[in-house]
């Protein structure tokens, strides 16, 4: 019953909006709700019991979202680190790289990635190896993969941008390289 009536409300609203496919902003609400920033004094409201199990565990978001979206402050993530197993394999890979044994180094990093596939530092390490192998496009991809895994971790994102900058410069894409480098530097001071 209710979904039905709500659907009609929706349709009525939509019809008034002119069934446009173009992006548009809803009218500003007369009393703008105070944007609650994460980690601020606003209460963190737990989710209702009927839906708790339905959500992936992610940083708890603040209560009801305001009608006017406000850019959220992303929670800062702790800088990524290596597990002891990955650490051992990464140093092994670095030693192999130094000796010029690039396939061996790739093998060691492959092993580490199987143990910690979500560790952005390992993807950066793999990207560095791809630079040695002169596979610059893959080096950049590895950097971007690392970026996607390091949301909120400025130090790691900075290292990823540095890798991306190097891979771009190696292919003569200087303006983009400069842009990436600036991102790396900006993130390293934040």
């Amino acid at each position, binding site marked *: 019953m209710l979904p039905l009536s709500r659907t009609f409300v929706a349709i009525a609203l939509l019809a008034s909006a002119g069934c446009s496919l173009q992006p548009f902003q809803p009218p500003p609400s007369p009393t703008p709700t105070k944007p609650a920033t994460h980690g601020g004094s606003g209460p963190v409201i737990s989710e209702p019991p009927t839906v708790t199990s339905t959500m992936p*565990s992610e940083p708890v978001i603040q209560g009801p979202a305001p009608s006017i979206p406000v850019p959220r402050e992303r929670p800062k993530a702790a800088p990524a680190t290596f597990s002891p197993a990955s650490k051992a394999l990464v140093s092994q890979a670095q030693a192999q790289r130094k000796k010029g044994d690039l396939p061996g180094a790739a093998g060691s990093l492959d092993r580490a990635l199987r143990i910690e596939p979500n560790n952005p530092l390992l993807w950066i390490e793999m990207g560095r190896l791809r630079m040695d192998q002169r596979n610059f496009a893959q080096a950049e991809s590895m950097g971007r993969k690392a970026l996607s895994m390091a949301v909120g971790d400025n130090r790691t994102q900075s290292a990823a941008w540095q890798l991306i900058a190097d891979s771009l410069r190696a292919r003569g894409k200087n303006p983009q390289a400069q842009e990436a480098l600036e991102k790396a530097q900006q993130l390293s001071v934040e």
Partner: protein
Amino acid sequence: MGRRRKLNRRSRQKLQRGFAILALLALLALIVLVAVLDRRVTQQFEGRRWTLPARVYAQPLELYAGQSLSAARFAQELERLGYIPQTPVDRPGTFRRKGDSVDVYVRGFRFSDETQPAQQLHVGFDGEAIASLAGPDGADVPVFRLDPLLIGSIFPIHGEDRIIVSPAEVPSLLPEALKAVEDRKFDTHHGVNPLAILRAAFVNLRAGQVEQGGSTLTQQLVKSYFLDSRRTLRRKGEEAIMAFILESRFEKADIMNAYINEIYLGQDGRRAVHGFGLASQFYFGKPLAELNLPEVALMVAIVRGPSYYDPRRQPQRALERRNLVLKVLADENVVKRAQAEHAMQAPLGITDNAGRSANYFPAFLDLVRRRLREDYPEEALTETGLTVFSTLDPLLQEKAEIALSDELARQDQGSRKAARGLEGSMVVTTPQTGEVVAVVGGRRASFDGFNRALDMKRPIGSLAKPMVYLAALQSGRYTPASVVMDEPIEYKLESGDVWKPNNYDKKIHGPVTLVRGLTQSYNLATVNLGLDVGLGPVARTYVQLGLDEAPPKYASILLGTAQLNPVEVAQMYNTLANGGFRSPLRAVRAVIDESGKALKAPELEVTEAAPAEAVYALDRMLIEVFERGTARPAKQALPSGLVVAGKTGTSNDYRDSWFAGFSGGHVIVVWMGHDDNATTGLTGTTGALQAWTRLMASISTTSFEPLMPEAVEDRWIDYYSGLETSPYCSGSAVRMPFELGTGLYPDPACPPSTTPEEAALMQPPLPVVPNEDGVTAPADGAPRTGNPP
């Protein structure tokens, strides 16, 4: 008189000269023959002595603190690798488990990147995980890999297969036993043993048939080289000459080693088992170096007649001959009599079924072979002794086989007649690294037959819907809250026919949100959405996600008429599970040649294939498939708290039942159907999803928890209307990701700011699970798509 004498003398001279010429000719012929035979046998011996099929290994088990592995499971894995539980742990291939700790003497192994020497290891466990690893000196070991499981060879059809062993890998007992039983004068003779031949001839004459061979080991070797067992005199003569040549040119030790690697020791289907190295794996499931006295004796017993003394088919006969060998060994003082008598009490100790059911994965090997053929010519694979390191996870493979066969067995017993005798296939990959860790090609997984994971292309049904929604999301014109019309459509085909798709439940649901259309798998909503987005962009997503070719741009691809095999489906869903990063699936990690040099192998690759924001939103909707959609019945069978995502697929007339889905660690694709394409009576939910859930629930995996992209935030919307709402009013609020700045309409009945207290005051209480059906399209032609993107 004088004339006669003269004549006689002249004819005698003539005769002598004739003889001399004849003798010279004969000598010449002999020299030529010896030269020819010399060339042949020497070339065979010195040159490429054996054609060596590529050996394929599974991925090694990595040990490190924190790895989820119990002591009991670890012991099982060691036994699978042929490790023997014993005290003391004093040689490679042995281990001892004491409660929560295991001491193991790991075998040496040449990996692609390093050679790992044999070494002792102490592994401490803390319940379900490894707590510590230490070397023999007590020093901490951060990470260590076991020697991997040999899962097969790539040999030509009807070909010889062997594992070459060096003298150091041969237990010293074996050559001694071979000499004692087959060739007592081996150390002193020159290739042939005339006494033995005479004795054999005498025995055979008395028996009236060939009962005994007088061949030396050298002669047996020569005979085996040239694969001709005809017992003609000429053959024998040539054989003797070649044996003599070998003996004069090569050391006894070299000849013994060649014999150990050459001789035929059994048949495994189309594969001829040659050499003791492979035979040891074939019969006992462990390396030759680790065989004990009764096992060595059995191998020596088999030499005389691998099919007559086949220990699997003729165990009694084999046992008797083994004990005869043991008696000879004692008689010849090779072993002490007490030892021999003790060994006679031992069982044969043969592994089941040639390791076929346990470690034989033909569908996976097939994939490896095909991937290798892209880089290597056939001869390189079957002859040059490559070592191939594959991505197979034996434990996961075993669980996949069990999950599928259990589900098929359940369907056999079930009430649906059409679902009896089904076939099935499964593919499992790891999303981040794109490795194929298990492939099941059919109901009888260890049967090397039709490989459905690769050779069967079937319509994917609703597995195609995520591609439509991905195209919509990445067009920038849609969000999970956008509304599309689930209403009848007539689509004019180029042929002039009119295509009129239907919903599975034959109902019309009117305006539905994208998230609802996908999770409930509504056909009409999907077709309307796909036509609005365009067939071109939808078809292109197939290539984005990893297919080589886009499907033809027919409207029917929106509902999954594209025919794909399970590996292709796994490739596409792997990209979805990997946040839009495409990694070409790999079955091979590394290849090395005989000398250990690394050769060409596909490397880990990632390519950003689709916008992270669109893939993230799609993945979140696919999670809802388990919360509210067609996979909801599976939720209770999964470990509580495990977040997974996926999609059901059913093709026309229930011919194919699909499920493709993923956790954080594994992508699993399941197909079930009949080979003759008959109807199964099953949907994706009632068929493939059941097998999928069995497997997902039985493996160690992690929740699917992708990181939210930077420019995205979560907001609550109503599942039915797409209006922005508060989570406290009803169970129909669902949290979905939106790019920052996305405009959403607030729900007037329950605005986003509604507090729990306000929601509680609302009367009447809102239903938690609203009625799914009965929503019909408004008659007054409501907008097709209307709400803001």
